[in-house]
């Protein structure tokens, strides 16, 4: 394993001192280097632009640079004009002179060795320009440096139907298609594996081979074990829930199919146009595969017609286009059919998830066991991370007595799964939230009160060591409860109508830049240039995939410099001109890029203020910058225009330039896998969904959603609302209708947009987006992510609402009408009812014990409410760590207080027998332990 994954191994010496260059592990509950926000100086903000305004979440470090220009105002995205007028150029819109059309030959077999490829007939076909096979691309690549297991074209064997075998470029598409039929290939068919459970067993021919690290002869790509907390709490629970889930794979379903144009220019440099979320990784992978230095490659990101994680891997077809272009000297354009989009996939993993939860008599969550077996398909992609995320991203927002997670990702002969909006967190989140509801049902208490009485406060530490800063979970829950009239609906609606709750927790930027040392290089860099005309050009590598990152960057620069947004021009398309940025994934862009942009803008602002000082004679501390004018704060009549100050600053120097960067603070634990799920901030969300279930047909219709999301600070409320509503749509697809169907032959049966059922406008409920602003101390103007987190809660909210409507718990997603019907029929027959319309629906059955517990929860959540407000503002700065709810002292490490406190990343030998499905991967040994390849 590469050092990149254990964030800081061996970071403390035996004598307790810090090892040079290594981060220290902050004491539990410290909430990082700055546990609370700094007090704000209201003198810095003129009243006219928001001084003395009500800030419920406390002051923010960026308050002093607010000019009231644009942050927090709803405005259309800066690139929307190009899109609505059809002038935005997407991947397939790039037309270079003399272009040729590339087509890819794909495997007709699920799993086979290529014994020989004869291309002579292809080459002889008139109109064919270049042909390439695996022999032209021997170097492997992959999105994660630890799992480089892909090739541009199959080198030795194909791993799923649709895997790339060879490619050809020709004068037109028809010729290229004809050429594909002329390849002569000798195959040796191998026995495919489709069932992830089979992937745990030894096979004659594992899909990949990892040498000494290979797990026996299985198809396990990654296994994870994590156990934290006091396991003795799990014994004799007051209440428990147990859910065994089957979740189908889902695809992003973005509008624009993959497309790429490669051109080896006259100077011998590669110009590659591609709709990429992460152009930088493509840049690196191209360099490896083509064996040319990175500076000889220019990756040009076109507009991206939707990504959602599906365009964040470096893709083999990008390499193919480059190889064909290098061979022919002509530009090559490759555009996918929709079917090819499904074959390259990278959608959400098909998962088998088992969640066991327990609660004690005070309604505290004492046990939290997750077992997740995920089906990775043919390649690793982001799977290494997904294997962790399935467990660790479920450990908040609740305070847990113990946490036990076993996860395994296996290779199968299916298109590769990867990262998709809500990466790795969505499926377990659904299982966990439904489990909580089940426990609330068993204890006869309100599920919202159960949640409110178990939340971690702001500035705290989770059980596995994540640092939580701002936390708007409580407000989100309260606002959806009040907005939906929960008290009058829950367990009170007639048969077929139901209401349900679900919560979410997601990272706002991955804390670790996977390709380099986080202590030495920043996550994001932004350059700003201001020339004599006063226009501000911002260079950034942030990839706008429709979420509005370009707008966010323009907004913060505009805010700091007090300029209209029309004066800010963002250049983000070319790697030649933009500083390195990790791209759009793990909801990092606004948090990291806008922070970098603020720093760069501050440098320009200082230069302008100093120039104004020169002219006016007043110290910058007494100057106010506002709407293209800088003036003396005690007499606004004394001032200079923006251009005057700019030209003064440019004297002898010319254009002003600045550079700003963002680096995440030191944080997190040191155990194996500690870096997975680590983020500088976390978003929180709570949804209430209302459904109508047709009890005779089994059709579910979601009618209303109250969707509260804590995004720290909505830089652009319009964009945040768009993300919330869009997330609802995407999540509803997974919970109600979308699935990748693999038939009995292992073929993907529905690789098209008719049979892959993305909800239409008719299926969309009325969504009421509720923005919660908890003002994150480290976010740009307090902002956190809003792109992925809002997807999580809709799934459990709908599943819980279905239970409220018909009293049946489903553990299979999606809830297609046949699954729902089956459940209804089973219950109808069990209760010996004539008709499904006679089904009883769930009601509270209060007893003295549950009434008491309900009171206790109410009381506790009221106390915690006060605690949270105090911690969010400056009053309470004491440490808080997961475990305080169970009576532990946050200032002493838990393992010192409690003998049973465990922190393990490998199972004890005696545990092996009782591990869950994915945990079975721990029964196998690595090759090096078996005396295999060393």
């Amino acid at each position, binding site marked *: 394993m590469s050092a990149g994954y254990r964030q800081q191994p061996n970071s403390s010496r035996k004598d307790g001192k810090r090892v040079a260059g290594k981060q220290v592990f902050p004491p539990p509950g410290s909430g990082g280097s700055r546990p609370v926000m700094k007090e704000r100086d209201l003198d810095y903000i003129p009243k006219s632009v928001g001084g003395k305004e009500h800030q419920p979440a406390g002051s923010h470090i960026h308050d002093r640079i607010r000019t009231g220009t644009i942050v927090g105002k709803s405005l259309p995205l800066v690139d929307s004009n190009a899109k609505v007028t059809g002038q935005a150029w997407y991947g397939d819109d790039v037309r270079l002179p003399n272009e040729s059309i590339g087509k890819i030959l794909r495997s007709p077999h699920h799993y086979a060795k290529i014994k020989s490829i004869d291309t002579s007939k292809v080459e002889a076909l008139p109109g064919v320009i270049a042909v390439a096979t695996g022999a032209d691309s021997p170097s492997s690549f992959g999105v994660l440096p630890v799992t480089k297991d892909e090739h541009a074209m199959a080198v030795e064997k194909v791993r799923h139907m649709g895997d790339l075998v060879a490619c050809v470029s020709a004068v037109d598409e028809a010729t290229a*298609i004809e050429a594909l039929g002329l390849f002569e290939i000798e195959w040796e068919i191998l026995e495919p594996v489709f069932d992830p459970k089979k992937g745990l067993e030894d096979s004659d021919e594992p899909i990949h081979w990892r040498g000494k690290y290979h797990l026996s002869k299985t198809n396990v790509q990654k296994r994870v074990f994590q156990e934290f907390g006091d396991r003795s709490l799990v014994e004799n629970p007051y209440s428990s829930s147990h859910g065994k889930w089957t979740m189908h794979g889902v695809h992003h379903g973005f509008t624009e199919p993959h497309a790429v144009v490669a051109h080896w220019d006259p100077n011998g440099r590669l110009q590659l146009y591609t709709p990429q979320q992460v152009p930088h990784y493509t840049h690196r992978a191209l360099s490896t595969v083509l064996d040319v230095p990175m500076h000889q490659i220019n990756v040009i990101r076109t507009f991206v017609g939707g990504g959602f994680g599906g365009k964040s891997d470096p893709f083999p077809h990008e390499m193919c286009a480059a190889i064909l272009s290098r061979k022919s000297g002509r530009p090559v354009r490759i555009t996918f059919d929709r*079917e090819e989009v499904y074959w390259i996939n990278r959608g959400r993993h098909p998962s088998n998830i088992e969640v066991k939860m327990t609660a004690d008599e005070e309604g505290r969550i004492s046990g939290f066991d997750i077992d997740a077996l995920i089906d990775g398909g043919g390649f690793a992609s982001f799977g290494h991370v997904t294997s962790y995320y399935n467990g660790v991203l479920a450990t908040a927002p609740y305070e847990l007595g113990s946490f036990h997670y076993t996860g395994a990702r296996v290779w199968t002969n299916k298109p590769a799964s990867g990262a998709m909006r809500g990466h790795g967190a969505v499926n377990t989140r659904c299982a966990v939230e439904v489990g909580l509801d089940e426990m609330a049902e068993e204890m006869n208490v309100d599920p919202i009160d159960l949640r409110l009485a178990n939340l971690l406060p702001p500035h705290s530490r989770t059980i596995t060591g994540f640092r939580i800063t701002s936390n708007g979970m409580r407000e989100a829950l309260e606002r959806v409860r009040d907005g939906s009239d929960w008290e009058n609906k829950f367990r009170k609606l007639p048969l077929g109508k139901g209401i349900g709750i679900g919560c979410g927790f997601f990272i706002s930027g991955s804390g670790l830049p996977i390709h380099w040392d986080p202590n030495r290089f920043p996550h994001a860099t932004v350059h700003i240039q201001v020339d004599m005309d006063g226009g501000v050009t911002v260079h950034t590598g942030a990839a706008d995939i429709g979420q509005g990152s370009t707008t966010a960057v323009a907004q913060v620069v505009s805010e700091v410099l007090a300029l209209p947004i029309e004066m800010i021009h963002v250049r983000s398309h070319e790697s030649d001109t933009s500083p390195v940025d990790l791209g759009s994934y793990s909801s990092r862009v606004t948090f990291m890029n806008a922070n970098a942009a603020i720093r760069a803008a501050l440098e320009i602002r200082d230069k302008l203020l100093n120039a104004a000082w020169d002219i006016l004679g007043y110290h910058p501390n007494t100057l106010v910058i506002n709407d293209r004018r800088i003036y003396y704060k005690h007499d606004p009549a004394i001032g200079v225009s923006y251009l005057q100050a700019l030209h003064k600053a440019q004297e002898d120097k010319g254009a002003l330039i600045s550079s700003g960067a963002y680096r995440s603070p030191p944080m997190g634990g040191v155990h194996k896998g500690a870096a997975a799920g680590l983020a500088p901030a976390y978003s929180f969300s709570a949804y209430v969904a209302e459904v109508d279930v047709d009890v005779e047909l089994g059709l579910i219709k979601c009618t209303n959603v109250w969707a509260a999301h804590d995004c720290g600070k909505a830089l652009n409320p319009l964009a945040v609302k768009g993300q919330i509503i869009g997330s609802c749509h995407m999540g509803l697809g997974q919970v109600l209708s979308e699935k990748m169907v693999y038939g009995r032959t292992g073929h993907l049966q*529905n690789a098209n947009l008719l049979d892959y*059922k993305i*909800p*239409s406008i*008719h299926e969309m409920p009325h969504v009421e987006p509720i923005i919660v602003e908890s003002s994150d101390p480290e976010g740009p103007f307090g902002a956190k992510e809003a792109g992925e987190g809002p997807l999580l809660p809709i799934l459990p909210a709908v599943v819980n609402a279905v239970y409220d409507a018909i009293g049946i718990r489903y553990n299979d997603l999606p809830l*297609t*009408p046949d699954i729902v*019907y089956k459940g209804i029929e089973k219950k109808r027959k069990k209760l010996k009812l004539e008709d499904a319309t006679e089904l009883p629906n769930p009601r509270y059955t209060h007893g003295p014990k549950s009434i008491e517990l309900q009171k206790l929860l109410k009381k506790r959540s009221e106390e915690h409410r006060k605690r949270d407000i105090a911690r969010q503002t400056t009053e309470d700065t004491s440490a808080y760590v997961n475990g305080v709810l169970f009576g532990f002292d946050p200032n002493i490490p838990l393992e010192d207080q409690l003998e049973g406190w465990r922190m393990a990343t490998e199972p004890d030998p005696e545990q092996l027998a009782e591990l869950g499905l994915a945990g079975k991967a721990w029964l196998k040994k690595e090759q090096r332990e078996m005396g295999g390849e060393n």
Partner: protein
Amino acid sequence: MLMPPFILHHPKSVNEACQIAADLIDQNQEFDWVSGGTDLLANYKWRINTKPNVISLSNIPGIDKISNLEIGCMARLSDLKGKSVHPIIAEAASKIASSLIRKSATLGGNLCLDTRCFWYNQSEDWRRSIDWCHKADCGTGADCRVIPNQNTLCVATYQGDLAPVLMVLGATVHLIGPNGERVMPLSDFYQLDGMKKNVLQKGEFLLKVTFPKESRQRIGSYQKLRVRDSWDFPEAGVAASWIEGDVKSIRLATTALESIPKDHTEEIEDLVNSKWNGKESIKSLAALIKKSVKPVNNTALPPNYRRSVVQVLVKRALSKINGDS
């Protein structure tokens, strides 16, 4: 996706169309008819049973007529509404596919819709990798993939919405071809087999549909089962019609459950002629229909589910009859 090449013929009259067809038959050339193209051209792009010639009906004037008792084959589905169209037809037409598709799709095309199957409606590469199927075997004589080891019958599912509705209104179809015009009840137009589909002979096309006067007295309903309220083909469909106050006049037809739409009027004759007992009678009718249909596993939802809920659809289609007579 690239459209395969074909020669497009544009006859300006019905006679010219028949003549072109006759000429192509003489030259031993294969051809397809196209009206709206929303079914055929999508299949062509997937290289499913493509032909070198396509005869378009879109330039022939007068065959898109819509009146009380007659609808021409080129009538667009989006135009099947308003006073002169029977309310059940309007109801069913409004549920077909999406509003964009309804703008170009036609009545004739919908009645002659190709049968569908998830082993068949796939790209050429996909079908090659399963060694083709019986319906599009590319000359290999491939077996059926839905029910293997029988290659006499194709079980692809007919998923048109209009046919059952027209059946319960007693529609008659008028076919025309080089050998003249043929007229028959719509129920006789379909022929069991997912490949043959209907009785159209080479060179013939469906010209128009006419209705008996009695149909204007009929009321009824069309129930469509689908996952999404747009785009989706029916997973099951039930049409019912009756003359107000006369339960003996009930007609029932189903679609999307077999290779052809099915007119159940004869099957239910005994039941509706015996003593009518409101809900109980409807229940027996529903059970009878369920027994009579045999869906197979080749659409989005499993066949046992589709078969079970046919009962619910029948019940709902007849719900307004309760209390009558």
